[in-house]
């Protein structure tokens, strides 16, 4: 029986992109359904009743929510190729730690930058410090996963499309502060799974400007 894989998606979401990269890495065929966060489908409300958020992966009718949990699930079920998490338990724990760190920091701090309120300057400082910490962890490795992209790369790379927004909104100076991270981002795009899934930075900027307006109206 063929696996039925459906992804409830939002094209701009860095969290959904994580899942798309993982699916591409494993060569999994899936159906992508676009959601409108201001007009959520019945399917989304049924599949993720608690958070009502995307991404949701529906595998043979069973829903899995939370992007990193979905990526771990994909890695476990389709373990025939491209392992994303290390097999060594200690290395695995470090990968889980860093992905969790990225999850806790980047989106929230970034939001304070593109919303452009009083805390924007403070957020800009925090963002640079966060990227510097992450860059130190990368060190001289090609990828966070070592020789090929892994769990932490998948967790972080979607946000690289948002660098243009952060620069335009607050002049963050990410490239000057974190050159290794910029080089890593370029290297990631050489992987087809990443280049296929990443969004265009200019389109993201346009999307976030629109989103900001809608949120301010609410």
């Amino acid at each position, binding site marked *: 029986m063929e696996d039925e894989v459906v992804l409830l998606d939002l094209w701009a979401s860095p969290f959904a992109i994580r899942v798309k990269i993982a699916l591409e890495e494993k060569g999994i065929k899936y159906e992508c359904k676009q959601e409108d966060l201001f007009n959520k489908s019945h399917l989304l409300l049924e599949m993720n009743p608690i958070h009502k958020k995307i991404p949701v992966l529906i595998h043979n009718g069973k829903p*899995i929510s939370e992007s990193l949990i979905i990526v771990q699930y994909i890695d476990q079920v389709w373990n025939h190729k491209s392992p994303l998490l290390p097999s060594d338990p*200690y290395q695995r724990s470090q990968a889980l*730690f860093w992905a*969790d760190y990225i999850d806790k920091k980047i989106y929230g701090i970034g939001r304070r930058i593109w919303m452009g309120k009083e805390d924007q300057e403070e957020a800009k400082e925090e963002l640079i410090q966060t990227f510097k910490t992450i860059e130190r962890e990368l060190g001289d490795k090609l990828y966070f996963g070592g020789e090929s992209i892994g769990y932490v790369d998948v967790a972080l790379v979607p946000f690289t499309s948002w660098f243009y927004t952060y620069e335009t909104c607050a002049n963050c100076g990410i490239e000057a502060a974190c050159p290794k991270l910029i080089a890593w981002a370029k290297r990631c795009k050489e992987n087809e799974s990443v280049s296929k899934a990443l969004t265009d930075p200019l389109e993201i900027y346009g999307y976030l400007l629109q989103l900001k307006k809608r949120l301010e109206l609410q």
Partner: protein
Amino acid sequence: MNINLDFNYKSIKPFIFICFHFGILALVFSLIVHRLSQTRKDALIGSLSLITIRLTVDARPTATLIEFSNMEEVKLIGMWLSPYSYRVIWALKLKGIAYEYIEEDLSNKSPLLLHSNPVQKKIPVLIHGGKPICESSVILEYIEEIWPQNSLLPSDPYERAIARFWIKFADDKSPSISNIYRTSGEEQEKAVKDSLEMLKTIEEHGLVGEKKFFGGDKISMVDMAFGAVAHWLGVIEDVAGLKIFEQHKFPRLNSWIQNFKEVPIIKENLPDRDKMLALLKRRREMLLASE
């Protein structure tokens, strides 16, 4: 009757020679072992048993590495008041893992903590064979992998994803509970509202199906992740002078709390209620005074 008692003395001579020297070696060895500390004796016996098993059982290389690594020293840097610290304590004790507990003074962080968790500077931190692991949920996954006995996560990938969903939910929402005693006015109202929403979600979605625990009949990592609801919430309600958890409104959650606190490892490893009450009251006074 003619019984032939004529045994060949020459053929057993090498045998006697070997036994004699083996006896001397055994004597010397036991004298050395006798002088070792109890921990070292345990480790030695453990290593020897593992070597014996390894020589007789065919096993994969990774399994061997894990078998040997689970003999290494375990330390936990924790804090007596933290539910996150307790998650790790419960997991270690349920699996029967010996560890050294190090109480951390968060107002004066130790060089060990700062060295082991330079990024977050938080507890709990598990140090296994000198290598630190941070973030309680990450620590629990690591413990589960290294010491698979008394499993705390389902083996089925889908069930595992559901368990992880709830653990993340607990991680994301539990701070609302501590915010109840840390804030006043509008901020406190929001903390109360968020906490009630969390309880409602657990009641309506997490404990459906007359289950004893989140994962069924056995306690798991998910139950431990909600430890704050089971024990800390009650104390915080008293500190803030508010009633948030009404038993009749949350019957499933109420049953779960009773079941959870009756598990011997949990029952015997909870921070003292009166001590908690006194400290949190003092903290609340200080926080509100500084506003």
